[in-house]
């Protein structure tokens, strides 16, 4: 028994991931005395370590961190002006840290809607196919672990990394903000920032699960990376242009869109995840936003411009939230299905 484990160890030492398995194997021997260690978390740990040591993750973290700090710097430069312009009873001074800009450099959440997908794609585009191309998949799967541990662990590991990173950035901004402007966030503001952070995590994890799906679908890592990036480009740049073009063809020039027309257009635009994310951030970071669509005069009659409570804001963007979460789960669902049905033996 011990001999076979030792040979297994030697055999799989080449693979990145199989190191984790070997640790598991080692520990499984000791499991009688030490108590059970779930092999799933060992794979997750290993994946996280791999990501953190990788160059591409480092570069993306630096890019996102720099844009975050850059936007923070710009907003700190302009927050005094913004606070003076706004009404005296504006209770949301702290949220301005996340939204104020000087017009030259977009605020942090706009950057995030561009760069977040890139982070997600880079974390997932070679999740499965690289294992195939390196030939390590069969070694891992020959370990006595359930097959679905691999894909679930890969997804979980990336999710943890994303969550840690965004929570860190949000609290970093909060901390620097408190030090430099001297205003502590209220409970309401803190909740809003936290929800915004969760929204960005969900947004990035959607792209992550999409790219994992692509990494299963395409055997070449480069193909899946390119297809991921092209989807991202399509949604962020071309989709809105396309919708505008189609609408300008349907609606004759000079005529204004009816309310239902505007609503249809918005609904079509909201198919894209980045539109959903923009909606969420807009509402969560600006409490005075009451509606994302057009409002009729009837609806505005008797309304007074007061900020919404955080729960009402959340309810307003709840469909968007649900869309992103459901999209993430759906992509994971299909990648799981695809991975489980894939014939491993042919690739071995």
């Amino acid at each position: 028994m011990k001999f076979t484990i030792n040979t297994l160890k030697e055999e799989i030492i080449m693979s990145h991931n199989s190191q984790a398995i070997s640790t598991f194997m080692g520990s499984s021997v000791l499991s009688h005395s030490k108590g059970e260690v779930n092999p799933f978390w060992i794979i997750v740990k290993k994946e996280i370590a791999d990501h953190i040591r990788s160059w591409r993750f480092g570069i993306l973290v630096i890019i996102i961190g720099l844009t975050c700090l850059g936007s923070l710097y710009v907003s700190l430069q302009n927050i005094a002006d913004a606070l003076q312009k706004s009404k005296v009873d504006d209770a949301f001074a702290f949220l301005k840290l996340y939204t104020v800009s000087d017009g030259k450099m977009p605020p942090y959440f706009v950057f995030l809607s561009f760069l977040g997908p890139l982070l997600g794609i880079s974390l997932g585009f070679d999740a499965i196919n690289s294992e195939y191309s390196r030939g390590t998949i069969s070694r891992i799967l020959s370990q006595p672990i359930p097959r679905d541990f691999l894909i679930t662990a890969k997804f979980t590991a990336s999710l943890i990394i994303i969550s840690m990173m965004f929570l860190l950035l949000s609290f970093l901004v909060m901390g620097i903000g408190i030090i430099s402007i001297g205003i502590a966030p209220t409970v309401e503001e803190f909740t809003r920032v936290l929800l915004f952070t969760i929204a960005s995590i969900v947004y990035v994890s959607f792209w992550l699960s999409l790219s994992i799906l692509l990494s299963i679908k395409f055997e070449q890592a480069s193909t899946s990376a390119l297809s991921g990036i092209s989807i991202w480009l399509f949604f962020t740049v071309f989709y809105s242009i396309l919708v505008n073009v189609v609408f300008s063809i349907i609606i004759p020039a000079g005529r204004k869109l009816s309310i239902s027309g505007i609503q249809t257009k918005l609904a079509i635009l909201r198919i894209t995840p980045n539109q959903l994310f923009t909606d969420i951030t807009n509402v969560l970071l600006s409490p005075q936003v009451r509606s994302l669509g057009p409002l009729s005069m009837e609806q505005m009659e008797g309304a007074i411009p007061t900020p919404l409570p955080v729960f009402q804001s959340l309810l307003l963007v709840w469909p968007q939230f649900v869309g992103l979460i459901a999209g993430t789960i759906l992509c994971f669902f299909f990648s799981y299905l695809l991975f489980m049905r894939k014939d491993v033996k042919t690739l071995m």
Partner: protein
Amino acid sequence: MKKKPFFIKVLMFSALMFMLGVLGLKAANQVEIYTSNTKVSLSPGETVTYNLEVFNHGAEVQFCDLAISGIPRSWSYSLKSGSYDVKQIAVKANSNQALKLKLNVPLKVNKGNYTLYVKAGEAKLPLVINVSKQGNFKTEFSSKQKNMQGHSKSDFSFNTSIVNATGDDQTYSLMSNAPRGWTVVFKPNHKQATSVEIEANGKKDVVIDVTPPHNVKEGTYKIPVSAVNKNTSSELDLEVVITGTYEMELTTPQGLASTKIAAGGKQMVEFVVKNTGSADLKNVKLDASKPKGWQVRFEPKEIESIPPGEYSKVDAIIEASDNSVAGDYITNITAKIPEVSSKMSMRVAVKTSLLWAWMGVFIIILSLGGVILLFVKFGRR
């Protein structure tokens, strides 16, 4: 004519006395009383002081009991030797003793002659006081305008005057016997006071400020005021006519002017219509200016009558429009009668209905369920 015989009698009596003395009855009448002013003329309220001397013509010390008779009951007097009230004096032989009689003529006195006798032992001295005029002790409290009309929130300022027709300076305390809740303030010298001093035959103008109670009903009210001291008093009845005013206040029992409501939902808000005026509010109608698509119903729709100082409760059922957006809205509720109206702004916070939120949660649960199904199907393979 009637008094003359009396006077003559007195003269005759004195003459008789004199004669008796002359006729060697000296042993019995060795004592004599003397004063210089035997007949004085006084006006009511005046005080006179007689300097009396009692002579002893005898060779022995005489003990004389002192008495004064013929003095009207309401008059006050004092008989003093030095600084003491005395009832009896002793006079040395061939000597005299001074006495002082102080007499106060009251205000309430008739015109005429009054004779009184001072007795010292056997000796008797008649003193005549002529009251020169009819005594007056009346005080007049009057006002040219005793009746005033105004609404319940106005102050009534009466110009009154007190005339002291007595022959003496008087200090009056000013009192009122107004109904409960009324405030009556006397201002003799443009300053609030409770008493006033008026010299003899003097006149003082007193301003009386009358403030009706907070929730006075319309009607006529009598405010009796009086100037009183121990000698004299005078009363005056002031009259205030309160005209009805229509005032009302629309509010909520706790004064809370905000409520929450779900979009498309109902919310009942209790309102209170207070009658702050002095007339009955009849047929109070309630109305609401509301955002479009909203409904506001009142229960009851109309309040029949609210007496002054009372209030009536009204339930308003606010129904928000289905497609109202979350946020704060202003609804103005108005209570009105033809004479007056009162408005209250209600801040209504509209909340999104949770139905779609639960739909979202359901969708997420459904998709998670799909994944779990996959786990169950493919896991552990």
